[in-house]
């Protein structure tokens, strides 16, 4: 019952002198009805992965390898542009981009974008019907109808974010990929956005959600499973509670220990970070990309890239779990 299945996705940024190996060998599957969180620090490849999934891959980004399988077994990456436009983009898989602030055309009203987006998939539907349906959907998501008649500069940051979410889910896509939807917002708006996303799934407007963020605390509230990325590769995948309280990969362990929890004994704990810095992806370290910063590094880690090992329902990319 996987609604989306990624296999060995490899995407690089092709620059003049070298390539930035932003996404390397990413394989995962998204189950129907689940919220999968993708976590990682800045520059780990999450947004590149999101762009790849949206099938709008603009230079200098280039898809080198990989397959993206729908629930019917079709490989999205092999479909023609026309099919992608009509059937996939916005309809099977929709993306909520990272900076909602700029994602709206400054000289067009929201309703214009809505009409164009719907017409791209249902060219025969009359405008009035489109407007009626979208007003209903917007209302259901808690957005007042005046939003449709507004220009983007007339809306606040939080409103813009929620409008984007509403637009992206307008065609009831099966998969919604949210790229850092809560990043630039204050805590109460963050909560509103999270509630919005969960309600989208509960009401059946979308089936599954991929939630990309650097904030693991947020994922704990909303995700069923968490996938961690580091330097373009997946390092750990598992159920949320398991990953957070029993992290297996050394990177995950380091990351979890940096999360400050408001509990009484936190004052006595010494905060440890992960020494070093993420590698330059033009020249990633050989073997496991985390080994230079890993306390448990073995000689093997320098030479061979660890494969994804299964361990009691979890997937870990580490030689420790061979």
């Amino acid at each position, binding site marked *: 019952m996987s609604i989306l299945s990624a296999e060995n996705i490899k995407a690089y940024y092709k620059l003049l002198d070298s390539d930035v190996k932003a996404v390397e060998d990413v394989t995962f599957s998204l189950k129907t009805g689940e919220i999968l969180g993708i976590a990682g620090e800045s520059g780990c490849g999450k947004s590149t992965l999101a762009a790849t999934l*949206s099938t709008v891959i603009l230079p200098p980004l280039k898809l080198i390898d990989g397959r993206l399988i729908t629930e019917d077994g079709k490989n999205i990456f092999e479909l023609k542009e026309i099919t992608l436009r009509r059937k996939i983009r916005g309809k099977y898989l929709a993306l909520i*981009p990272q*900076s909602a602030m700029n994602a709206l055309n*400054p000289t067009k009203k929201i309703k214009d*974008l809505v009409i164009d987006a719907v017409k791209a998939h249902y060219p025969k539907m009359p405008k009035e019907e489109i407007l009626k349906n979208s007003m209903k959907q917007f209302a259901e998501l808690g957005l007042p109808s005046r939003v449709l008649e507004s220009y983007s*500069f007339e809306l606040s940051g939080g409103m813009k974010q929620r409008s984007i979410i509403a637009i992206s889910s307008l065609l009831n896509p099966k998969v919604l990929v949210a790229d850092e939807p809560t990043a630039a917002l204050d805590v109460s708006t963050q909560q509103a956005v999270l509630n919005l996303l969960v309600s989208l799934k509960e009401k059946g407007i979308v089936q599954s959600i991929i939630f990309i963020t650097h904030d693991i605390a947020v994922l704990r509230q909303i995700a069923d499973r968490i996938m961690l990325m580091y330097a373009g590769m997946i390092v750990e995948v598992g159920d949320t509670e398991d990953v957070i309280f029993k992290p297996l990969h050394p990177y995950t362990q380091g990351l979890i220990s940096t999360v400050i929890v408001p509990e009484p004994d936190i004052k006595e704990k010494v905060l440890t970070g992960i020494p070093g810095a993420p590698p330059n992806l033009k020249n990633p370290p050989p073997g496991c990309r985390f080994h230079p910063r890993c306390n448990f590094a073995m000689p093997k880690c320098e030479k061979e890239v660890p494969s994804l090992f299964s361990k009691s329902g979890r997937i870990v990319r580490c030689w420790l779990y061979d």
Partner: protein
Amino acid sequence: MFYLATYFIALSLIFVIIRLMPGNPIDQLVARLVLGRQRGVAFSSVDKLYLLYIDKFGLEAPGHEQYLVYLQNMLSFNFGISIMYSPSTVMEILIGSLPWSFLLLFPSIIIGFVVGNYLGAVAANKKGFIDNVVFNLSLFLSNVPYYCLALILLYVFAFIYPVFPVSLGISPGMPGFSLTPNWIMDYLYHYALPFLSLVLITIGGQAIGMRVMMIYELNSDYYVYSKQLGLSEGKLVNYAYKNAILPQITGLALSFGSIFGGSLITEVVFNYPGIGLTLYNAILRQDYPLIQGCFAIITLTTLLANFFMDIFYVFIDPRIRAVYAGEKA
């Protein structure tokens, strides 16, 4: 409003600067004639005309009175009698030449704008070979001064391959203006080269600018997002084009003055009977009333064009409209 004030200031500037400049011909003329009249010296017909002019415009009066008379005259379009073409008034001559200039100026600006922006958008969108060709060609074209291109075109097409006539607006012997197909054909025949001089350079300039603006829009976040929603390339380019053209219109307003200036000199090259040629001849013959009148009309035209483009812009850019709506509320 701003433009009214500017016109006012422009006229005053001219008045002040001319009167203040040492050795300016008006003062000299006035002095010579007034003195001569007092002594009863005989005058040429041109001198007589100047005397009349001095009387009518009170040039003998002290400075600030002159200023008021001047303003009054300028603002009511009473520019006086042309020395060269007396007894016709300056206004009559200007009205005669204006249509020719406008017929040359406005079509070339409009066509240059439309074609140039289209080419720029295509170049930005298609990239590669087309982009290279359009870019380099436009870069070169946009920097050629209007009159230089005029000379070259004249040389190539009127001398080497005599396709077009060397000068004038209409063949001698033809009536001043009429709507017969015959006349129109003849006019177009004379019109072609000056028109080309202006249009080609405008196209070049617009193409360069539009290309930059389009590239900016095609790389914007809203473009990517709309594409991710499944909109077609055609629709997306349409979005980008509509956004890119806005600053182009502002740019056009700003460069109107220089296009107009260039067209004036182009008229001189082709002996085309517009304001430019009129001004040129006025300078040659020292017909000062006519010179002043030409300046007033040229400035007025430029200011009006800017004014209308500003208003037009408010209607097409929703962001500016919102600012004005907000202010009114």
